[in-house]
C-alpha cells in the first residue's frame, strides 16, 4: 500500500520484517537505527513486553533519499513472532510492499522457521497477495553462533527448507554485529522499488 505522490515526486512504502519469535527481527531494526542514522527519519518505536518480546510491532521511519528524482521514504516494521499474537501480526502486514523473512539459523528453531513462513504465506493470501509475487528477501540470521559451537543448520539445508520453491535472494547475517543487515535491506528496497515501478511506473 505504497503512497505515491508523483506531482511532488514522493514515494512512501512499507517493508515488514517477518519471522519466528526471537529470530532477530528487532535486532535488525536496531542495527539499522544505529548504523544508518543519516537515513533515520524519526524515533524507533518498540512496543514490547515482559522479557523484551515484541508485543505489537517495532516501527522505524527511514529515508532512502532521491531515486530518479523521487524522494523515497520507507516505513520499516517488525511483527511479533510468537504464535499467540497472530491477529496483530496480520494487522501489521496489511498494505506491505516488501518483506524480509528473518530465519533463525539455530538447529532447534528449524520447525519454527517453516511454520512462520507458512503463516506468512497464509496471511498474505488472506490479503489477496501471492507470496511468489511479493518482493521478498530471506535472511539466515545468527551465523556468528557457529564459532561458539552451537548447532546451526547449514545454509544449504535452510535453502532446502525455506527457499526451494520461493527462490528468493538470500543473505547470511549476524544482526547483533550488523553483518548482512545492510545488504538485506538494500536488496529488499531494490526489489520493492522495482515492483512499484512495474505497478505505477513512477521512475518515468
Amino acid at each position, binding site marked *: *500500500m505504497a503512497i505515491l505522490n508523483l506531482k511532488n515526486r514522493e514515494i512512501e512504502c512499507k517493508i515488514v520484517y517477518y519471522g519466528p519469535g526471537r529470530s532477530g527481527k528487532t535486532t535488525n531494526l536496531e542495527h539499522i537505527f544505529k548504523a544508518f542514522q543519516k537515513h533515520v527519519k524519526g524515533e524507533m518505536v518498540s512496543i514490547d*513486553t*515482559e522479557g523484551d518480546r515484541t508485543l505489537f510491532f517495532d516501527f522505524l521511519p527511514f529515508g532512502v533519499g532521491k531515486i530518479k528524482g523521487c524522494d523515497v521514504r520507507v516505513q520499516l516494521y517488525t511483527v511479533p513472532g510468537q504464535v*499467540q499474537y497472530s*491477529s496483530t501480526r496480520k494487522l501489521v502486514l496489511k498494505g506491505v510492499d516488501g518483506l524480509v523473512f528473518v530465519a533463525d539459523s539455530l538447529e532447534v528453531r528449524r520447525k519454527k522457521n517453516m511454520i512462520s513462513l507458512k503463516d506468512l504465506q497464509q496471511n498474505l493470501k488472506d490479503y489477496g497477495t501471492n507470496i511468489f509475487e511479493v518482493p521478498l528477501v530471506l535472511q539466515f540470521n545468527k551465523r556468528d553462533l557457529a564459532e561458539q559451537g552451537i548447532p546451526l543448520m547449514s545454509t544449504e539445508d535452510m535453502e532446502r527448507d525455506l527457499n526451494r520453491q520461493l527462490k528468493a535472494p538470500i543473505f547470511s547475517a549476524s544482526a547483533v554485529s550488523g553483518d548482512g543487515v545492510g545488504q538485506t535491506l538494500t536488496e529488499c528496497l531494490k526489489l520493492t522499488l522495482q515492483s512499484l515501478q512495474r505497478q505505477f511506473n513512477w521512475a518515468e
Partner: protein
Amino acid sequence: MDTESLIKSLLKEAELYQSQGLLDDAKQKYDNAAALIEKNPELENRQDLLDTVSEKIGALGSDIDKVEKASKSPELSAKVQDLIKNLFAFSDEKDKDETELEGAIALAKFGQFDAALAEFNELIKRDSLRVVAAKNILRCHIANASLDDAVAQYGQWLSSDIVFSSQQLESIRIFLQGILDRKRIDKRLPSVVSSTHFEAVVTPSHVEEEISEDEEFLDITLIGIRPKAGRLIELDVNFQRGNTISVLIPGRDKDSINRVEVGLKLDDVECSSAFAVFMASGTVIEKTRIDTGAKRGDYRVEIKIESA
C-alpha cells in the same frame, strides 16, 4: 563424544538459548542434561551438577510463567496510541470518515479500548458513522470486560432519542441481541420498533453448536449483507477459513435464500469481529442446501471477503 563433554555442550546450548529468550528450547536442553546426569552414576560431582541444573530448570520455569502471564494488551502511551491510529488507517486521506474509523478500529484491535471508545464516541456524532461507531462501542465494552456495560450503553442510547433514528437503533439492537444470544445470555433487549415481524425475519437463527469462549480468536463472527439492495440480512458465521466465511441461512427464510446467488458481488458486507465492526466487500462462492442432520433444509453459503 564422552558423556561429560556431551553434558557440557548441552549446558552451553541451554545457556545460550536462555540468553536469547528461547526459554522452551533452553529448558529442553537442561532437561536433557539432567536426564543424562541421572543415568550416569559414575560422574564426578554428580549431585552438585544435578542440583545446579534443577535450579536452572526451576528459574526457567518461573521465567516462562512470567512471559505467559504478561499482559497481552497493556495500556500504551498517548504518543504510541496516536502512532497506531495514524499508521493503521489505510483509506484514502480524502475519505476522512473512513480514515478515522479505521484508526479507531486499529486502537481496539491493539487492545487500547479506552482510547478506542473515546474515538468512537466522537465518531458516533457523525451521521454517516453513527451505527458502525455504536456497534464498535458495544464491541469494545464486550472485549474490554463487560456485557453489562454494553447493555447499559444500549439502554442509554434508547432513552436519548436525540441522535439515533429508530431504524438505526433497531439495527444496533439486533446486533447486540445476536451477541447475547450467542453467549447464551437470557436477556431480551427492549426494542423501539413495535412491529415484531421485522425481528422475526432478521434476528439471526439460533446457533446450536457451541461457540467457543475464545471468541476473540475467531476473526469474523457475524456479517450483515444487503444483497441486491434489499433489506439487511444478519448472519452468524459458522466457520472461517482464511478470508472465506461460511454462514447458514434458515430454510424458512425464502426471501434471503433467493436473493443470495453464487457469483453475486456484495459491496457493503458489515463484518463483526471480536474487536471491531468493519465494512468489506465479498463474493458469494458457494450455496448448498443441507440435506441431512439437524440443519436439514437450511442453506450453507460461502462468501469470500475481499477487502477485510
